[in-house]
């Protein structure tokens, strides 16, 4: 690995000198992906047609099916990717950053080209786009909640490995509470609300332990996180086998959340079914993403939070109570992760199962790092990871040549590359992982 050439260009604006650090990593990464795809398309060209189904049967506005020729479409895709690569290289040469949207455009084109290629060579060359996208979103929901939890707690200076445990605790508690209350005289709606609240409370409780041990007792945060995951897995599995399984009808049959299509918006072709025919918890997620982004970067709360995570001594000097700020924000983050856990039981499966989060907390952690500790980018990363795992489902249904395990591996490999610095500049909050001991 050679150190990438970094250009430090100083542009002077009135009264303030800002240094724009541009990096050649993005154009290089674009070029590598483009070349790899081109090699793939040369090595095994798929001449068949790929059919993209853009509407479901129940849609108001029916879009025609999009039929693309395997060879023509893939090569158009490669040409577009090459154009984006050249554009990004030109931007870097002009000492400007490569904008985020260009990255998204690149990713979408690359995925479409790959999908066309995979479908053209498959047994059933039909890709149901609405199903693929909606499935991707629902796989991403807990990841996004977990990633937001990770963003907040790491921004405030506490490394949160316990996201997995918080998700699992939320899933367990929401299932039990929603079942008990939802079957009583109060009815399913109250039960669901109580379940969601209980999930957030459970996440907070796990976060309390993390915060108490790492802030009060200065125990290493990674150790507490790892141990908390084991503790929550043990507790929920024990209670599941001992209490939930024998009384499944009373304790483990929560009322599932209904889909609430938003009028008009849900009829937008392609996007509507994906974003606006979802359960309340997904709409809650949109709200929380926006709130966390706004709060972190545009309010006093966010400024204090970030200053505690970057330089606790300085924050303490100006009168911010570091320990208290960390404690309550880690707890808030726990509430968000707990809500994400409720999606597993109330939103998706409808019952609690042993270790049902299956590593989602760790993928969320990966999304935090890949998203560079930024709520919007972390959300996009979580969506990408959710898309990758749903793409794997779709491809295995179509009978595609790529082994499904390699698709599932993708988020983790991408994260390793990101941490190792191949993908972009990754730098976490400076004080994350270090307890602040006031002297």
């Amino acid at each position, binding site marked *: *690995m050679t*150190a*990438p050439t970094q250009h430090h260009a100083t542009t002077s604006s009135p009264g303030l000198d800002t240094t724009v650090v541009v990096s050649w990593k993005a154009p290089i990464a674009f070029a590598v992906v483009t070349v790899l795809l081109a090699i793939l398309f040369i090595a095994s060209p798929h001449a068949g047609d790929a059919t993209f189904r853009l509407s479901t049967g129940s849609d108001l506005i029916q879009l025609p099916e999009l039929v693309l020729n395997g060879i023509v479409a893939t090569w158009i895709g490669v040409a577009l990717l090459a154009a984006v690569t050249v554009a990004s290289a030109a931007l870097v040469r002009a000492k400007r950053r490569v904008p985020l949207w260009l990255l998204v455009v690149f990713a979408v084109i690359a995925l479409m080209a790959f999908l066309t290629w995979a479908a053209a060579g498959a047994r059933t060359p039909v890709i149901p786009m609405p199903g693929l996208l909606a499935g991707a979103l629902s796989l991403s929901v807990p990841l996004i909640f977990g990633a937001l939890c990770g963003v907040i707690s790491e921004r405030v200076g506490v490394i949160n*490995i316990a996201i997995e445990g918080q998700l699992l605790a939320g899933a367990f508690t929401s299932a039990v509470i929603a079942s008990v209350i939802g079957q009583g005289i109060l009815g399913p709606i109250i039960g669901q609300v109580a379940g969601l609240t209980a999930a957030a409370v459970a996440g907070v409780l796990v976060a309390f*332990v993390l915060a108490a*041990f790492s802030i009060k*007792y*200065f*125990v*290493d945060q*990674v*150790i*507490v996180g*790892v*141990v*908390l995951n*084991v*503790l929550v*897995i*043990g*507790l929920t*599995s*024990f*209670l599941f*086998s*001992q*209490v939930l399984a024998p009384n499944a009808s009373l304790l483990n049959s929560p009322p599932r959340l209904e889909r609430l299509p938003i009028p008009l918006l849900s009829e937008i072709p392609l996007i509507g079914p994906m974003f606006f025919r979802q359960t309340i918890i997904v709409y809650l997620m949109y709200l929380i993403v926006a709130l966390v982004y706004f709060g972190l970067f545009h309010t006093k709360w966010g400024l204090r939070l970030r200053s505690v995570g970057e330089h606790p001594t300085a924050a303490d000097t100006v009168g911010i109570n570091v320990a208290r700020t960390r404690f309550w924000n880690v707890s808030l983050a726990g509430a968000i992760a707990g809500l994400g856990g409720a999606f597993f039981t109330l939103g998706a499966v409808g019952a609690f199962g042993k270790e049902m989060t299956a*590593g989602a907390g*760790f993928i969320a*952690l*990966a999304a935090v*790092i890949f998203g560079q500790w930024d709520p919007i980018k972390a959300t996009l990363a979580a969506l990408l990871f959710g898309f990758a795992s749903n793409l794997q489902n779709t491809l295995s249904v179509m009978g595609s040549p790529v*082994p499904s*395990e*390699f698709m*599932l*591996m993708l988020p*983790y*490999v991408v*994260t*390793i590359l990101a*941490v*190792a*610095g191949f993908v972009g500049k990754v*730098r976490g909050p*400076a004080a994350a*992982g*270090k*307890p602040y*001991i006031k002297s």
Partner: protein
Amino acid sequence: MSNANDPDVALQTGTAVPPDEPVREREPEVEPPSRWHEAFRRVTTGNAIISVLAVLLALIVGAIMIAFTDERVQAASAYFFARPGDTFVAIWDAVGGAYAAFFQGSIYNFRRDDFISGIRPLTETLKFSAPLIAAGLGVGLAFRVGMFNIGGRGQMLLAAAGAGWVAFSFDLPWGLHMIVAVIVGLLAGALWAGIAGLLKARTGAHEVIVTIMLNYVALYLVSWMLRTPGLLQAPGSNNPKTPPMKDTAIFPDLLPGPQLNLHFGFLLSIGAVFLVWWILDRSSLGFKFRAVGLNPNAARVAGINVKSMYVYAMLISGALVGLAGVHQVLGTVTTGFSSGIDAGIGFDAITVALLGRSTPFGILAAGLLFGAFKAGGFSMQAAEGVPIDIVLVVQSLIVLFIAAPPLVRAIFRLPQPGAKPKSKRTRTPRKEEVAAK
């Protein structure tokens, strides 16, 4: 490529400063040893009494959980105010029965007639503890170098895949076959962990994140190999499972009798304990390891190549964790394995290393304790219907309590050690005086 606040980078600039310059001018550039290492030292040093009390506390919490979820206790507590005695009897029966089954499953079974079948639980404990000790040594050795190897699962899976592949697909004479399989397994584990060490040394990537991610990559890689004919899948089968290991590669039993399953792997683990003790306490490599673990900046100034220490430590750590994977395929599950072969040992090893305070003999003791937990947990599940997951709860509580001695001291009202730092405090003003001059 590295971060600007990377201590190694700061140190690189530090070494460029001529040696005759005053030391205190360099101080602001060099980041003080991270809390990370201090926290490790706090976890890894401490009183033995805390460990004992932590185990006791965790067992009490376990007892409470058993009591509250027991059906007889729940039935008796329905009429608690009429006859409170019944509730306490039921609690005593539930907890006493569970812990008696636990003892009989892990140490000695008094209900058996002859000594051989009575002592079988103890050999089961030793069998379960063998991989825990090996993997615990790996994690503990990484701790001593200031690194956290959470990648036990991935390293075990790849080691199991490597050793298993040699064991079922090659035809070699007895003894040699086993040695080759063990070596291939250790190499696979070492290389997988070495990725994390190399990335940390070269790019500053945090080994916690990298090893967690490598766990999943290994899981999917091995799952793919297990269902691909010609790699690991048993010929003529559709299950993601390997063929059985050949007899020439399987660890021989140490004790006579078909009931006693203690295998040669236990001796390998004991040997590993002494090897790690020798490496850490007697070799120059171990001296460098410990120096890097205590303070990487000081180690660098003393002329130790910190980055290569990270790589070596992860290689050795991965080989030790890999030994646990080899145990699993050549000793415990010899009839062919699937992707669950690691049996959670990679994560248990972290708790073993923490409980053993990262010293080889401490890890031996902690491994034996957790091996007993595992053997006893299975028997408790079979005899009393208490789910084995309670062992996870007890183990994690032990580590949590041990990591926070002030909490344990507060619960048991032990005096907090507050008088110690006095001697240090008298030294601080002197330092400032020197700085003022």
